[in-house]
């Protein structure tokens, strides 16, 4: 058996993992971080549409590593059944950045906090049939200091404005807002005109150099791109680099953990992983942390069977993988036609580089008796609407090769017709888009299991994800989309449309290892320590029993800092 060489071993290196590595390494503990992907730095991130979207180069090939996605169908007699499809067959990747720092390298960095009502969704709005809604075991004010800590340590740029849904804050933003495009002020005016409150979006992007990182350089390509200036607050740039600089943190890239082993007493005996050459290795530590992003965290625990854990580590109550969450909602857009605007307006619209940085949260709590999804009091949990421009040119060109022939049929265009079509697409209008974020209610039909046939390239079972949704999510998403469309109308946009879907947003996932006070209905306690294993913590988004209506990364960071503080106190007591 190996010696215990580390105080703490962390599986994963993203937003859930890096705060623990940072806190513990700074406290003087010996930290090991195991990350499945390669270790890239600012020097290896480019504004390369082929790498980012067309060839998905920062993620595994689906033929090497994939998922099985289960959807509900009905046969000809009307009987419902669930059937899985391999993502290598569908092409639907569920990876979000398999590199050191994880998906936080590629996030948009909309850092909205959760609001107090998100911590007590059941108490506030009551039960909804078919949804496993519960209150959290902690309150907003217990997490608030850690939101403030993330704003400081990871670096959040923003501006506090009074608005009806502003959550309580103990501090102001440590960095001024990032630069905004001129048309952001159009949104402010239009919102004002129709009684909305356009809120500046807090952004995990440095507006000035700090903490050894450069400021944003405003290339205009941010969302889904890796940051080459270090301004974006990825777990790698903001926290792991500092953790490693202490001399106390060892980071092993290309190390794929496949099992956390336990003895018959249920004590963890080591973490087993494949190294870069595919050799089996193992390592021991006093404390273990799992933070591989929701689906993969549940997969690792389920795969980590042992004498005391026949169904997977910390899973004797069958809760691991259950109540998986995504973000519900949808997308919409409206076009600004240059011909219909004056020269100054067109020039303002054409500015590329700074951010739109506007959101609406007027319906974070819906208070509208006319809303079909509301409870008896006419209330329901609503959500957030964010506005943005897209920049990817190859994606924009694609589609311009299709026209209509004299008989109204689709016709491939080429020659002068094609050139006119491309030129018109790029130079006559600009599309403003919005994204709606609302709660994905937890249900019995949305969970992670192990597939019993499909394995990854190392021979380990892949995660099988059932992606059932609750009808209520669509009602809320549609309600919010209609509100967002009204703003586009007030802005004078044309071709306004939106689409709300029941398909999960695979880049926004949480749940699967709920925290709670009752071991029968939760995997983790309020400190995100496993009820069934003393020295095991889960610090990614898996802990969330309900997801809230904003992107997850900020809350994952804040909670991981909170849990890291608890782990540190435990470690200091023993040391």
């Amino acid at each position, binding site marked *: 058996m190996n010696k215990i060489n580390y105080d703490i071993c962390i599986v994963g290196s993203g937003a859930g993992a890096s705060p623990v590595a940072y806190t513990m390494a700074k406290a003087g503990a010996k930290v090991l971080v195991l990350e499945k992907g390669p270790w890239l730095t600012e020097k290896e991130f480019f*504004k390369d549409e082929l790498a980012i979207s067309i060839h998905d180069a920062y993620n595994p090939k689906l033929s090497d590593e994939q998922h099985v996605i289960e959807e509900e169908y009905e046969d000809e007699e009307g009987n419902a059944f669930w059937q899985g499809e391999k993502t290598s067959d569908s092409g639907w990747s569920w990876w979000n950045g*398999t590199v050191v720092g994880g998906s936080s390298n590629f996030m948009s960095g909309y850092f909205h906090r959760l609001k107090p009502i998100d911590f007590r969704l059941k108490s506030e709005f009551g039960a909804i049939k078919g949804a496993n809604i519960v209150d959290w075991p902690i309150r907003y004010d217990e997490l608030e200091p850690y939101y403030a800590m993330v704003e400081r340590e990871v670096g959040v740029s923003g501006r506090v404005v009074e608005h009806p849904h502003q959550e309580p804050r103990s501090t102001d933003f440590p960095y001024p807002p990032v630069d905004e495009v001129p048309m952001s002020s159009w949104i402010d005016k239009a919102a004002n005109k129709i009684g909305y409150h356009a809120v500046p979006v807090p952004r995990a992007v440095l507006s000035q150099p700090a903490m050894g990182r450069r400021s944003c350089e405003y290339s205009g390509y941010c969302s889904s791109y890796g940051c080459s200036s270090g301004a974006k607050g990825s777990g790698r740039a903001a926290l792991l680099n500092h953790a490693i600089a202490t001399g106390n943190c060892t980071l092993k890239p290309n190390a794929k953990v496949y099992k956390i082993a336990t003895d018959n007493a249920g004590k963890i005996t080591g973490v087993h992983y494949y190294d*870069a050459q595919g050799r089996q290795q193992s390592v021991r530590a006093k404390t273990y942390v799992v933070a591989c992003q929701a689906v993969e965290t549940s997969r690792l625990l389920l795969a980590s069977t042992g004498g005391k854990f026949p169904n997977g580590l910390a899973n004797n109550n069958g809760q691991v993988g259950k109540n998986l969450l995504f973000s519900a909602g949808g997308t919409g857009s409206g076009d600004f036609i240059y011909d219909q605007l004056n020269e100054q307006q067109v020039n303002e619209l054409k500015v590329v580089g700074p951010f739109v940085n506007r959101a609406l949260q007027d319906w974070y709590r819906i208070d509208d008796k006319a809303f079909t999804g509301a409870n008896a009091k006419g209330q329901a949990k609503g959500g957030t609407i964010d506005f943005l421009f897209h920049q990817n040119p*190859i994606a924009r060109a694609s589609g311009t090769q299709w026209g209509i022939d004299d008989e109204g049929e689709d016709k491939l265009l080429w020659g002068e017709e*094609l050139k006119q079509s491309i030129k018109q697409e790029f130079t006559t209008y600009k599309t403003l888009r919005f994204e709606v974020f609302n709660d994905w209610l937890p249900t019995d039909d949305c969970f992670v299991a192990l597939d019993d046939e499909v394995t990854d390239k190392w021979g380990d079972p892949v995660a099988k994800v059932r992606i059932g949704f609750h009808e209520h999510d669509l009602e809320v998403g549609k309600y919010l989309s209609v509100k967002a469309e009204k703003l586009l109308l007030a802005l004078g946009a044309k071709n306004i449309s939106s689409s709300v*879907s029941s398909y999960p947003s695979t880049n926004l996932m949480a749940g699967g290892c709920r925290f709670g006070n009752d071991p029968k209905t939760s995997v983790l306690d309020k400190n995100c320590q496993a009820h069934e294993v003393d020295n095991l913590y889960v610090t990614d988004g898996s802990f969330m029993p309900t997801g809230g209506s904003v992107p997850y990364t900020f809350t994952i960071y804040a909670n991981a800092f909170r849990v890291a503080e608890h782990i540190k106190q435990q470690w200091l007591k023993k040391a």
Partner: protein
Amino acid sequence: MKSFFDKNYQTPLWFRKKSDYKSEDPQSRRQFLKSAAGATAIAALPVMPLSAKQQEQSLIQLNKLKKIDPWLTLEATLLHLLPESKSAVSAEVSPGAKSINALAYLYQVVTVQPTEEDEKKFIIKGVGWLNGFAQSQQGKPFVQLSVEQKEVTLRGISNSSAGSNWLSTLLAYIFEAMLAPPAYGGNPDGIGWRWLEHQGGFPLPKAGQRYFELPTRGKAKDQITIREIEPIKSSTRYTNVPLIKRANKA
């Protein structure tokens, strides 16, 4: 398969997966992909990236190769699909396949980028089918046709699904040649971005930093040594059940 008009032709999965990245809505993309159910996945073959010197040599080689097929016909096709031209409204010259280095880009797609073998074969075989069709209709290979005859010939093949897919594949690579970072061989000095008043990003990758040249991932042992062969379990997954997708959950 001997021509674009073969009745047995079915659009392969690689084409559906690729042609679909255009869709900006992930949900509609998803619906589209589901319609590809039943097709089998094609494993990509291992790639051996060429060194910088080899690539330089390969471009020199292209100047010789484009005098013979398949590159001779591919160049003529690209030039017809995206001709150089003067704008009707200004003195601006809008770049065509020649100015954006479309042929060199396509050559890199086939020789340098890790493109699926089935796709490469389809691009190359299409040249034979195009020439077969030109010969049967016009009595000459494609490159010897007048502009009008070329137009009629390409319209002719676009009426078959294989022909339409072949032309779509070339058009997709024309877009990449026009709008991808110049390190990939097209878009010299950002000529495509300039024409379309598009602001490219920074920093851009250089040769050696392109998507297929990023640091590699950890390998599994069977990617290095031969693995023990395990008996294959029989599948329990539904395969041939007629499916009706439920719109909503009740």
